[in-house]
């Protein structure tokens, strides 16, 4: 990087010092950098210069400054040397590299992470972000776009950081999420029981949520929390939501579609079709789409001719009992008694007949 050397403008008293002297002095001068290795400190003798930058062919400028404090605080601060990631730059002067633009610069280091994080790298190859990258869309996020480069921190500390990370690109979704029952309790009350983006979408192997298979997986996805007795008890929520859904028309249909290896159709309502997706509200919220007064509007999304009493076909996740849906409860009870009664009664008549014939012989 000879062209950079020209731009390397000395600053402060560090300017004329010999490389060897710096090597010895740096630990004393930069106390925050104590934890970083001597090799890193060697690179920092130049890269702690805030004005150090690279002008790319496109005219974009890439700062070559590395904030030693943020690197020292990062998860890699006491573990990695610069050359662990920047393996191509092990000599000084640096070998010449030319980049068309900033994105190409970032992409050049894309595979640096996989040396250690092979499992997550492999998972990301199944993800929707890699899929759009492989189709040539360079806007797709790479490791560093979400995790940062020199300042990599634990992604889930605090938990809300995950959703904020996604929000950098998915602003509209984040806005809806922030107003939802899940987003509100997490972002405003700091309640970590609430899900963030990655809880539903996963982090590295994010699949396209518009596919039939993702749609059909929605009930089991929501059920991970909503059938957890301990968790739901805290909020007075029912854990029967999955079971009651699966027993109803929509749930049954979703099971049918799901059992097919390649779902051909996903034409049935899943949790999010009624409750909302990122903008999901508490069922007690008057604005909730599943509030009784709003329900017929939800039905009409798929059943355009639904009449005002159409939503009564839905038992609102209640298990039939003498209080809730008594008719369903009693019809069920009737058959539970009637079926064995008829079959066993008639069977007895046949057995008596056989018995008499045997006795008479």
């Amino acid at each position, binding site marked *: 990087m000879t062209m950079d050397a020209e731009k390397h403008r000395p600053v402060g008293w560090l300017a004329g010092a010999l490389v060897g002297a710096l090597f010895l002095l740096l630990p004393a001068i930069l106390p925050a950098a104590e934890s970083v290795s001597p090799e890193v400190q060697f690179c920092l003798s130049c890269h702690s210069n805030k004005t150090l930058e690279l002008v790319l062919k496109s005219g974009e400028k890439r700062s070559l400054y590395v904030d030693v404090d943020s690197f020292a605080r990062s998860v890699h601060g006491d573990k990695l040397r610069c050359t662990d990631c920047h393996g191509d730059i092990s000599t000084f002067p640096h070998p010449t590299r030319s980049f068309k633009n900033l994105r190409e610069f970032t992409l050049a280091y894309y595979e640096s992470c996989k040396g250690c994080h092979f499992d997550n790298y492999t998972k990301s190859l199944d993800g929707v972000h890699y899929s759009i990258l492989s189709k040539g869309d360079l806007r797709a996020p790479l490791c560093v776009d979400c995790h940062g480069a020199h300042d990599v921190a634990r992604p889930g500390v605090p938990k809300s950081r995950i959703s904020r990370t996604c929000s950098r690109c998915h602003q509209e979704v984040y806005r809806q999420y922030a107003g939802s029952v899940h987003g509100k309790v997490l972002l405003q009350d700091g309640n970590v029981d609430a899900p963030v983006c990655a809880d539903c979408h996963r982090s590295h192997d994010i699949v396209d949520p518009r596919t039939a298979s993702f749609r059909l997986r929605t009930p089991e996805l929501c059920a991970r929390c909503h059938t957890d007795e301990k968790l739901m008890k805290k909020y007075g929520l029912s854990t029967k939501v999955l079971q009651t859904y699966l027993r109803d028309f929509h749930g049954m249909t979703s099971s049918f579609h799901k*059992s097919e290896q390649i779902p051909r159709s996903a034409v049935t309502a899943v949790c999010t079709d009624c409750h909302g997706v990122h903008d999901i509200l508490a069922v007690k919220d008057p604005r909730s789409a599943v509030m009784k007064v709003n329900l017929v509007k939800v039905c009409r999304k798929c059943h355009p001719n639904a009449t005002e009493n159409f939503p*009564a076909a839905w038992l609102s996740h209640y298990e039939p009992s003498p209080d809730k849906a008594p008719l369903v409860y009693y019809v069920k009870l009737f058959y539970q008694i009637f079926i064995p009664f008829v079959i066993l009664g*008639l069977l007895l008549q*046949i057995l008596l007949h056989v018995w008499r014939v045997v006795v008479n012989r």
Partner: protein
Amino acid sequence: MESERQNFEPAQRYYLRIHLYHRLLHGLLMASFLGLAATGMPLRFSDLAWAVGVAHAMGGFGAILFFHKSFAFLLTLCFFLHIASVFYLAFIRGEVGVFWGSASMVPQPRDFVEMLRHFRWFFGMGPKPQFGRFTYWEKFDYWAVFWGMAIIGITGYVMWFSSFFGSFLPGWLFNITLLIHADEALLAVWFIFTIHFFNSHFRPEKFPMDLVIFTGRLSERQLREERPAEYQELLEEGSLESIRTDSPPLWLRNFGRIIGFSVVVTGFLLFGLTLLAFLRE
């Protein structure tokens, strides 16, 4: 061989008990019912491994629902063909005996008397009743199927054309239709695959298989022993000779045996699977 003697007695005279029309209709009924049960039960117990297996074998749940509806159409056709024949006999041929009398399927006062006597006989408290053309349990069998077809059929069509029915029927009715359809169907499947099968296979005089529904023919001995009242009536009327027919040909008996046993095996398998599933519910 016991079965050979029961179904083929060359020395005997043979009389026609079941017309070809009714035998064909029973064939259609049997095929469509078996089809409905085989496609419906996997839908009812769709979360069980065997149900998924059956569904996959037939091309997925979407496909079995299509087959289910096709069989439903056939059974509906069968239902109306039967109704049409009853009305034809009663109103065009003027045989009012279809609706009332010793040859009618409608329960007669004597059926209740025979039932009581039958139970007395079970406990050795009296002689075996003199049954006529149809016994009380055969009539029960007939009406159980009739009732079942009406209930399961109506609820089935309400769900099939739910958007049409939903435009004027209240929503809560759909919960009931699914429930009734599924449970009434379970009752029908169990009834046919146990009671109806036992009636025609396991009663001592029928074991191992009564072929009359395939051959349509009954020997004089069978008529005299199993349906003494009918035999007596025919004898007094002098109409016995008018229903005289040839002995059942071998091909027809073999045809009946093959169909009969295949259906019984399939039926028992479905009964076993659904019983286990029901007990686990």
